[in-house]
């Protein structure tokens, strides 16, 4: 069966049918891949897939107000789901559809906001591209060039430093991200969050002590703020000018107070769960 006169290199190689990798690819696709079990050549791919599933930012949920309006109009009517009962209701429905058309306006407004849902998790990713992805970003979307000096003192053996340097608010973000990923993330998110944290803490055994020693960033956050719900400006403004006054909850325009109050628990839950799959 293994006749040495038939050199391996004559065999056709179809990368997608290479059996040893097929399992790893399936694991990546279903979110069950463990980074340490991912072949080295697939790690940049794994990083892309993790980045793809990063928590939503404010802009991505800017259409909520319009969606809620439609929901109020159309849903939850016993007997006649989705059918307005009166001409008045019909005209209200037209208005709400018009408001949906302006979802892009709301999206633009959201872009002006700085708050990032899933705060700490997002902070752990923001501004910290995996190396391969950063090079790609540099080529295609003119992102800042990767600087070796800012790539971070990744411990020998890990190969790729992910995550911001872990002091100050970034440290809080890393701890927060890890906690959040533990509770809600999929395997790869947990792994990335943990790797970042281990790098920052200086070893897996140091993590608990490290996070215990990290102060909450800034006295400006409202008391009783829930982990992973809203980011304080310090969490998300890596080197950017804060656009929200400190101490004020950063609710974006177009996603106003009614929304924030009306679905406090729902939105919170949604944010927490919308980051990836189990």
């Amino acid at each position, binding site marked *: 069966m293994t006749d040495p006169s038939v050199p391996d290199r004559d065999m056709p190689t179809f*990368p*997608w049918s290479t059996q040893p990798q097929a399992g790893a690819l399936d694991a990546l696709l279903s979110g069950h891949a463990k980074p340490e079990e991912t072949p080295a*050549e697939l790690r940049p*791919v794994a990083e*892309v897939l993790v*980045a*793809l599933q990063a*928590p*939503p*930012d404010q*802009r*991505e*949920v800017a*259409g909520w107000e*319009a*969606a*809620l309006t*439609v929901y109020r109009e*159309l*849903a*939850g009517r*016993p007997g006649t*789901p*989705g059918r307005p009962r009166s001409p008045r209701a019909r005209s209200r429905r037209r208005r709400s*559809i018009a408001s949906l*058309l*302006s*979802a*892009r*306006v709301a*999206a*633009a407004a959201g*872009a*002006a906001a700085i708050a*990032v*849902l899933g705060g700490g998790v*997002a902070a752990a990713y*923001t*501004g910290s*591209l*995996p190396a*391969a*992805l*950063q090079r*790609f*970003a*540099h*080529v*295609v*979307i003119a*992102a800042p060039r990767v600087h070796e000096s800012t790539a971070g003192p990744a411990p020998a053996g890990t190969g790729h430093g992910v995550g911001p340097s872990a002091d100050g608010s970034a440290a809080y973000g890393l701890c927060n991200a890890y906690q959040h990923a533990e509770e809600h993330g999929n395997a790869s998110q947990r792994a990335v969050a943990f790797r970042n944290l281990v790098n920052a803490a200086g070893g897996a055994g140091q993590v608990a002590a490290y996070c215990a020693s990290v102060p909450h960033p800034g006295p400006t956050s409202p008391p009783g703020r829930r982990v992973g719900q809203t980011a304080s400006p310090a969490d*998300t403004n890596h080197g950017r000018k804060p656009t929200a006054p400190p101490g004020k909850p950063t609710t974006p325009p177009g996603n106003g107070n009614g929304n924030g109050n009306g*679905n406090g628990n*729902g*939105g919170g*839950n*949604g*944010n927490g769960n*919308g980051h990836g*799959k189990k």
Partner: protein
Amino acid sequence: MIGEDFAAVLTAAQQGDEAAFARLWHDGQPALLRYLHVIAPDGAEDIAAETWTHVVRGLARFRGNEQNWRAWLFTTARRRVIDQTRQLMRRPATSLEALPDLTLADLPGLRSPDAADLALENLATRAAMEVIARLPPLQAEVIMLRVMAGLDTEAVGLLLGRSPGAIRIAAHRGLHRLASLLAEAEVTR
């Protein structure tokens, strides 16, 4: 993903509970938008909004688990993309861009979002979507449906009208292509 609460959340949302609908929406919308930005970069926000309108209309009649729900959400979105494409082909004058851009002009200083301006806070996510969008369309879509929608191979096959085997091959080819693209970026930096 909502997980074990899903059945209760769905039932509540079907009965008009706004907090429950908020949970469904916030769980689905980011994944939906990212999917749409890859397969239909022009008007992803609009298509997502239309998708939710359709979903809300049919919500009371929906029966199924979370996988079924996700499959329905993304199938609905995909239909909207196909409808939009057909409309644009039939009547090029009525593209989405030609619709009155309602109040955009009234909001000074805000730029119109478009495909190139996917100004997510998260640069890594943005770059990831850019690189996925460079794959052949089927491969890109399959990867987005597997990873973002969280659908399994069978569900994606049903959604795209292809066999599970074809879906798996497309996904694997896509990931290999992705590896090549990233390696090229490495070389050309």
